[in-house]
């Protein structure tokens, strides 16, 4: 590293029309989140440039690179804050925040690229680190600098320098990463007592249980194995640390889904059932999908690739995948969520021979944003988690040029312990490549050269896979966290898609959990072996040991196999796109996962053992119906007032101020946007895109999630999630005969142990959820083509343990033949007639209303009948009919009726259309007034029809449960039950309440 370090500081100019927006955003955020008001916050962006370029030269061209001369002023070599001219008054506090050494500094990387452009002589070892200083003026005297600093930075990845009582404003210094010395692999002796094996697993963050540890030990006792190892000069009778780490990653819950693959002894106290389930995944998810695959011709690739692929038309196939990034998001909400979204983008890029990501979905579960209760140590308040996660997904999605077209935010106290961050991506690929190969089939051969493409490997992201298989504690490692770099990834996506179309790729997968160990390890299965040379892997910092290089989850990397004769073309394409691409391995057919560091063999594992050696878990499951206090609604309720309260509930309120910050329209394809209606602020049910420019052929993407139903029955929770996702898709006119699903389970620890005394019950919840998933998906003829599970969503242990409610996110993607004929939730015109499809029953258990009245102290419990899907096959025909009516252009108004029931759904439709409605809920189902107004019975969709089209509509809907609700009028929403007035509400008032509840922007000035 060069000794010459030059400091450049830049701050916005002052004057007419000029504004320090960065500083002002911090000022507003302090007001919104903490009610602390400063008169002014100013910002300074700093660069520490380590290069061969002298300070004078940098100073002379500072406006060519670091400062925008029109709007900014700069200082080279000294602190701008000390300059009387620019800062005549000294701030009360100054906080300077920079990254810790080794943490991805994206502005620094970009600045370095720019430095090389302006100063070609900057030197190979040049480096730039960046920081930002906030200067605070005119605030309350009792606010301390250290307090402010804590609110503004995350000490896990950033460092902060705080001014000393308004006098000294010290600068941050360039900080070098400590040099690490490469140490050769060590040998781990497994011939030790059982307790010590467990201790070894725990202290090494291996997350392996005793049986797994002894299985590994026994592998090294095999004389044949020992002989083979001797031949390649690797320690014959014990694993190297490389091997043990590699096995721990590959066998982690995260990678091998051991709970879903377990043999479960399931007992049901309610029914007396006592049975053995041999793998939940195979029994309830895989089997039904494979059976459906035999009946249709459009399921191209399910389960075995990075995402499931279906054919969309003769030319194109589409694929989709959703992932979670919960643990990293708890530690660093911004970085964790960003790597979540760019990570799932890579799953799409790694599908088949490479698909192009064209749409994202984001579903988050958080603690209540206004939480003022206690927080366990090391946890961020929910509002901060929300801000960070949102920013991470925003930056990751927007900078990648992938629209976020659908999503949700769910709130519950228990997500304080672990937020859930689901990120999904839809991809598209030509069915045939120019060279005639089908794009969804990988075509690797032994002798193919394996490239690592994209970023370099660093110490960041070591142990991500094993770490997410453990509960979160105060000592969780910071190395598990990374910050993504969407631009490095975007360059890689551009390059790889070009390489695909040029026929240069035979096999591709992403580097996610487990790093190279997993990516090359998985691909090596195709040819039956590989040989990796870790010494060739480009590193962010020297000295990483072999096992670290092998398992590091550093971001923005794909693993791509190329035929030897295509390597030159592949490398020149990488050069053009300025993308790193290094050959690091070769496919073989030796049956061995063979890892070298230079000449030395550091791991030598049979592929069979690596992938299929993990012993099946044997688990106990026991269902006992939980006892929950009954929800008894109050006798004399003011339903009008209740509606306003409900509209302000975080689970119901508009998320518009958050969602608007996502680009949902890039690629010029988004037909139904997240917000619809006259003022473009009514809720959109599903995302609808027409991705081929000039062609109205569409794809629908929708989500369903209802975690609180798990309080009563996780089976009902799963059924509700699926039904909600399907209904949302139906509202956009999906072809229900051509849709597929993704199941993403997030569960608390379900293995009975000292830490988890109720493990049997939690596992029984999982069994019930899976059984309902199978039943409903079979009835809907809805194949699950891809899924994921995250099984350790708990914080802490013992009394302080917080477990999330068992949560299934269900995503639907499917065909929409013509986007010109679709529907949105907003009421369209006065005189429109409103109908509700489906019956409204007495199903108020775990409803949003029950939770609200319970929290308000107006009711004791939330128990009772939870919404059930008793005859899903009937729902399907109902949905088919409605979808047909929408696709024929007859119906333009449809909205699913879920959280908050009919009252909330109608209110949302009124807001979207800025129109009122006269509604009579008499005769729409068997529920009481509460049940019909607020109950969340499944299978219901509210529909608007123009009077002159009613006849045609009736013809299509004949035989389905269709109830007249009322009609659209000019101003107010009025709901009656026969002769009883229930609700009278003014639309603008409802809109204001609904829109303001979650607006945490602090306005615009």
């Amino acid at each position, binding site marked *: 590293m060069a000794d010459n370090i030059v400091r450049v500081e830049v701050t916005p100019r002052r004057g007419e029309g000029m504004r320090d927006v960065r500083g002002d955003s911090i000022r507003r955020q302090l007001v919104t989140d903490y009610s602390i008001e400063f008169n002014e916050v100013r910002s300074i962006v700093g660069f520490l440039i380590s290069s061969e370029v002298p300070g004078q030269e940098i100073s002379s061209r500072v406006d060519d690179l670091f400062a925008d001369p*029109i709007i900014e002023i700069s200082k080279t070599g000294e602190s701008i804050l000390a300059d009387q001219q620019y800062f005549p008054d000294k701030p009360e506090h100054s906080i300077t925040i920079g990254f810790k050494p080794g943490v991805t500094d994206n502005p620094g990387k970009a600045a370095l690229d720019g430095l090389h452009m302006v100063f070609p002589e900057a030197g190979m070892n040049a480096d730039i680190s960046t920081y930002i200083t906030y200067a605070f003026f005119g605030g309350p005297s009792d606010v301390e600098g250290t307090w402010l600093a804590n609110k503004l930075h995350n000490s896990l990845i950033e460092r902060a320098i705080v001014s000393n009582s308004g006098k000294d404003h010290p600068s941050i210094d360039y900080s070098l990463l400590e040099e690490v010395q490469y140490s050769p692999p060590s040998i781990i002796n497994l011939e030790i007592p059982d307790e010590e094996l467990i201790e070894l697993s725990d202290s090494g963050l291996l997350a392996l249980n005793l049986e797994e540890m002894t299985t590994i030990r026994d592998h090294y006792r095999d004389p044949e194995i020992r002989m083979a190892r001797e031949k390649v000069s690797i320690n014959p009778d014990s694993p190297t640390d490389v091997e043990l780490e590699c096995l721990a990653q590959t066998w982690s819950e995260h990678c091998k889904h051991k709970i879903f693959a377990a043999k479960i002894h399931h007992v049901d106290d309610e029914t007396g059932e006592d049975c053995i389930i041999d793998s939940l995944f195979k029994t309830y998810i895989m089997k039904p999908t494979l059976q459906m695959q035999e009946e249709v011709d459009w399921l191209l690739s399910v389960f075995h690739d990075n995402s499931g692929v279906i054919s969309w038309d003769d030319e194109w196939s589409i694929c989709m995948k959703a992932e979670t990034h919960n643990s990293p998001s708890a530690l660093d909400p911004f970085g964790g969520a960003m790597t979540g979204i760019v990570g799932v983008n890579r799953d799409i890029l790694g599908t088949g021979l490479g698909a192009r990501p064209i749409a994202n979905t984001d579903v988050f579960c958080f603690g209540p944003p206004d939480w003022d209760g206690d927080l366990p140590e090391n946890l961020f308040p929910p509002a901060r988690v929300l801000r960070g996660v949102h920013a991470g997904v925003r930056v990751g999605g927007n900078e990648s040029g992938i629209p976020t077209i659908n999503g949700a935010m769910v709130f519950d106290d228990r997500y304080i312990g672990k937020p859930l961050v689901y990120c999904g991506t839809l991809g598209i690929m030509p069915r045939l490549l120019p060279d005639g190969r089908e794009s969804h089939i990988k075509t690797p051969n032994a002798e193919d050269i394996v490239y690592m493409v994209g970023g370099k490997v660093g110490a960041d992201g070591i142990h991500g896979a094993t770490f997410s298989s453990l509960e979160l504690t105060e000592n969780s490692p910071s190395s598990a966290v990374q910050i993504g770099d*969407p*631009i490095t990834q975007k360059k890689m996506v551009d390059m790889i898609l070009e390489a695909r179309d040029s026929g240069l790729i035979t096999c591709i997968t992403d580097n996610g959990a487990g790093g190279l160990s997993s990516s090359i390890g998985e691909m090596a299965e195709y040819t039956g072996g590989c040989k990796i040379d870790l010494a060739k892997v480009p590193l962010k910092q020297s000295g990483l040991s072999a096992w670290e290089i092998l398992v590091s989850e550093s971001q923005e990397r794909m693993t791509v196999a190329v035929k030897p004769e295509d390597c030159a073309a592949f490398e020149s394409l990488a050069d053009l*796109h300025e993308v790193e691409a290094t050959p690091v391995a070769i496919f073989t057919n030796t049956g061995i996962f063979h890892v070298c560091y230079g000449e030395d063999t550091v791991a030598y594992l049979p592929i069979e053992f690596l992938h299929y050696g993990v012993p099946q878990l044997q688990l106990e499951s026991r269902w006992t119906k939980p006892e929950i206090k009954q929800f008894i609604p109050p006798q004399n309720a003011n339903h009008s007032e209740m509606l306003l309260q409900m509209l302000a509930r975080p689970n119901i309120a508009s998320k518009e101020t958050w969602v608007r910050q996502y680009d949902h329209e*890039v690629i010029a394809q988004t037909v139904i*946007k997240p917000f619809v209606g*006259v003022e473009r602020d009514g809720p959109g049910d599903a995302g609808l895109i027409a991705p081929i*420019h000039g062609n109205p052929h569409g794809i629908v993407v929708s989500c369903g999630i209802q975690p609180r139903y798990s309080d009563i029955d996780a089976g009902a929770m799963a059924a509700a999630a699926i039904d909600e996702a399907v209904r949302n898709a139906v509202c956009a006119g999906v072809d229900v005969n051509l849709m597929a699903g993704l199941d993403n389970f997030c569960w608390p620890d379900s293995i009975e142990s000292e830490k988890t005394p109720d493990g049997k019950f939690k596992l029984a919840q999982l069994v019930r959820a899976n059984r309902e998933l199978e039943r409903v998906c079979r009835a809907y003829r809805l194949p699950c083509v891809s899924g994921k599970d995250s099984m350790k969503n708990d914080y802490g242990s013992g009394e302080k343990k917080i477990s999330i409610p068992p949560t299934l996110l269900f995503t639907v993607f499917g065909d929409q033949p013509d986007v*010109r004929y679709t529907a*949105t939730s907003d009421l369209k015109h006065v005189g429109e007639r409103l109908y509700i499809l489906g019956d409204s029953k007495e199903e108020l258990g775990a409803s949003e209303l029950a939770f609200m009245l319970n929290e308000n102290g107006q009711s004791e419990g939330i128990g009772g009948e939870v919404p059930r899907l008793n005859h899903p096959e009937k729902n399907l025909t109902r949905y088919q009919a409605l979808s047909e009516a929408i696709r024929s252009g007859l119906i333009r108004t449809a909205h699913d009726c879920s959280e908050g029931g009919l009252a909330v759904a109608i209110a949302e439709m009124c807001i979207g259309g800025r129109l009122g409605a006269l509604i009579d809920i008499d005769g729409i189902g068997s529920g009481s007034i509460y049940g019909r107004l607020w109950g969340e019975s499944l299978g219901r969709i509210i529909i608007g029809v123009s009077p002159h089209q009613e006849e045609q509509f009736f013809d299509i809907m004949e035989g389905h449960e269709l109830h007249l609700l009322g009609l659209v009028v000019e101003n107010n929403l009025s709901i009656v039950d026969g002769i009883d007035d229930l609700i009278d509400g003014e639309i603008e008032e409802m809109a204001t309440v609904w829109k303001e509840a979650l607006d945490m922007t602090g306005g615009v000035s």
Partner: protein
Amino acid sequence: MVKVAVLFGFGINCDHETAAMFDLVGATAQRIHTNKLVNGEIDLSEFQILAVPGGFSFGDHLGSGRLLGNRLRFGLRDQLQAFVAAGKPIIGICNGFQVLVKTGLLPGPTAGDTQPDFIQRASLTLNDSGRYEDRWVTLEFDQNSPCIWTKGIERMQCPVRHGEGKFIMPESVDLDTLQENNQLTVRYVDPTSETGSGISDDVLPFPISPNGSMRNIAGICDRTGLVFGLMPHPEAIYARWLHPSHTRGDAPVVESDEESVLGDWEGEGLQIFRNAVEYVRNNL
């Protein structure tokens, strides 16, 4: 055949749809990695139109458009100069607009020679709100603008999707000059105002003006009218099915003499691209 070069690489991300727009109006567009022009593999002079699409080149670090702008300023200077000298149209949309402003191609010299001097005279910076937002705006076009891209277009509804769209020129005399030259081609206007009378020099409130731009400027052209840049995305309303009101039946219908491949489903944005292609057909 009118050939269009659509730049991509380094985080540009609207290249596919921008290329598709020119194809839809009868030109042939080619997505070209910027480096292929810099290294001479492809010669810019083979093309009649250059488009710099939207995106997040270099992550907007060091200011939106700055680093890609430098690549063009230092790596493509001569080719760009020759392109402009040949009277060929250039458009920059969103990040592309930011790039053209930071390279100095927009607004360009306000007096004397119209040839580019690559001096930055204006900037696009962080929205007053401090937020990146995707929202629909109403635009009104200066009917006297020399801009060849916007001929005959009075109003348009389309989305903005940016965090740095606030147009700034520190000296109001400079803005006066641009205004006198009719270079302030397109502005944010109140959708309830009457077409033709919406343009205002006073900054309109959020969200009518989504970013607090001086004089509500959404896009400008150079003095020749050939180089045009704007923050909003006309390509995002190439078809009426992309309009947020299309299920309400009130997505604006385009009245055009031209036959459209989209029939009466053509959206308001496509005409911008057609104008440039027609201009090339008639003048080059």
